[in-house]
């Protein structure tokens, strides 16, 4: 029993230690961010790898999510004779929740794992050490550009997700089911608020961008320099990012609804 308790305690301490180390890395990343903007092509390159390379998965998933939303929404709404509200349903669900959240989850799986594996391997093969011995700060040169690329890419991907999702919903609702074209858009416009819904969605995705990218970077940076260590770190990136995104989503949503 005592052994169990002490193990539990040690695990908790390890968690807290990792949280602190992550916060420290975040702090250093912000401090050494100058170079990622002075030499913006470093960041640009990472936007290409995290953002552009995620385009396909984001667009395809958004399309299907939008279509499913429209199908499911229609099924329920028509029972209450308000199938015109399908546009509102699709748009609000996407802009407020699914756009930022699903994008962040996909981002963690697609770009987050890539970042963790890359940095973990750079550490394993002593590339980070080599950089440090060349008097080049790896946080400024490797971590910060990837961080800012993630923070920039995430809202763009989320906006794209929402827009493509709405188009997917439109395709199912209007040509396929036969909801009136005008009603679809006008109901949507009457009920989706720019400030309360769209801007809040963008804020959410910005926060998710910071969280997901930072978690991926920290896990890579903290990975034990072995093949096994890197593979575990990659798994942890997905698990921790997903949980963090869902938890943060709840916190942010409650803030936004209250304020």
């Amino acid at each position, binding site marked *: 029993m005592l052994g169990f308790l002490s193990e539990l305690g040690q695990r908790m301490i390890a968690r807290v230690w990792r949280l602190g180390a992550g916060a420290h890395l975040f702090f250093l990343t912000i401090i050494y961010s100058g170079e990622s903007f002075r030499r913006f092509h470093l960041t640009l390159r990472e936007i290409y790898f995290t953002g552009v390379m995620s385009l396909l998965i984001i667009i395809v998933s958004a399309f299907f999510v939008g279509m499913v939303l429209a199908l499911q929404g229609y099924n329920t709404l028509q029972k209450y004779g308000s199938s015109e509200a399908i546009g509102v349903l699709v748009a609000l669900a996407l802009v407020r929740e699914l756009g930022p959240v699903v994008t962040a989850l996909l981002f963690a799986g697609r770009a987050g794992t890539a970042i963790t594996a890359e940095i973990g391997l750079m550490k394993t093969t002593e590339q980070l050490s*080599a950089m440090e011995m060349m008097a080049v700060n790896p946080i400024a040169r490797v971590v910060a550009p990837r961080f800012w690329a993630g923070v920039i890419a995430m809202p763009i991907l989320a906006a794209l997700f929402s827009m493509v999702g709405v188009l997917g919903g439109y395709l199912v609702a209007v040509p396929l089911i036969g909801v009136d074209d005008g009603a679809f858009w006008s109901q949507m416009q009457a009920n989706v608020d720019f400030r309360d819904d769209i801007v809040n969605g963008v804020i959410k995705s910005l926060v998710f961008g910071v969280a997901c990218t930072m978690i991926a970077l920290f896990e890579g940076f903290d990975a034990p320099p072995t093949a096994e260590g890197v593979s575990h770190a990659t798994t942890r990136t997905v698990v921790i990012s997903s949980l963090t995104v869902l938890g943060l989503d709840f916190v942010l949503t409650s803030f936004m609804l209250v304020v």
Partner: protein
Amino acid sequence: MTSNIVEIDNVSFGYKGRLLHKGINMAFPRGKVIAIMGGSGSGKTTLLRLIGGQLKPSKGEVRVDGAIVHQQNREGIYQLRRKMGLLFQHGALFTDLSVYDNVAFPMRELTDLSESMIRDLVLMKLNAVGLRGAHSLMPTELSGGMARRVALARAVALDPDIIMYDEPFAGLDPISMGVICDLIRSLNDALGATSIIVSHDVKETFLIADYVYFVANGEVAAEGTPHDLMQSTLPFVHQFVHGEKDGPVPFHYPAQNYRSELFG
């Protein structure tokens, strides 16, 4: 200023209470090729990290060009590191950059040279290691020996005063070994630099080193020119140098006690 560019003065270092080094003294005069030899796990690479400021000694001090390394702040250590080039055991090339970009990396990061100037310098360095023709290849397309030569070109990209080699001969075929061997000596003399070689390959190291330190049990067990050491009567040096299996005092290996117990 002394004629020694690097001095290790009574340095102790250990992880978690277990001392790896116990009061080591070494001096590295300018322009020489100095070798640090010893068995696996004797802390040779750790000495390089102490010189590079990646680790801090628990006691004593390491001086590079008169400056005490562990008392420098981050900026000071970076200043010192600009005088150093380190060749990692496995090269540690940046796998996402081509050979050309790898060699150009320190120039782009640390200098304001124009791209055309960098191009000339990179090709010069690559030519020196005989790989000018391979500048567009990616590191994954290189053999082990070629990768190490590229890493060498990168290590000397900014004409450092101190070039450190971590196991430069490990895992190479005899031809590549000979090539690296020649390169270390010729680069050292051409650049007027000081070379520090960490190795356990006796033949190649003795061929090019001016002076050799033997590290064993956390101490400098023997030192001298290769010639002296070849003649050394110290039992473990004799065993190490000649690679004898049944050495009288094979320091690291617990078999020694076992043998003395059996026959003593």
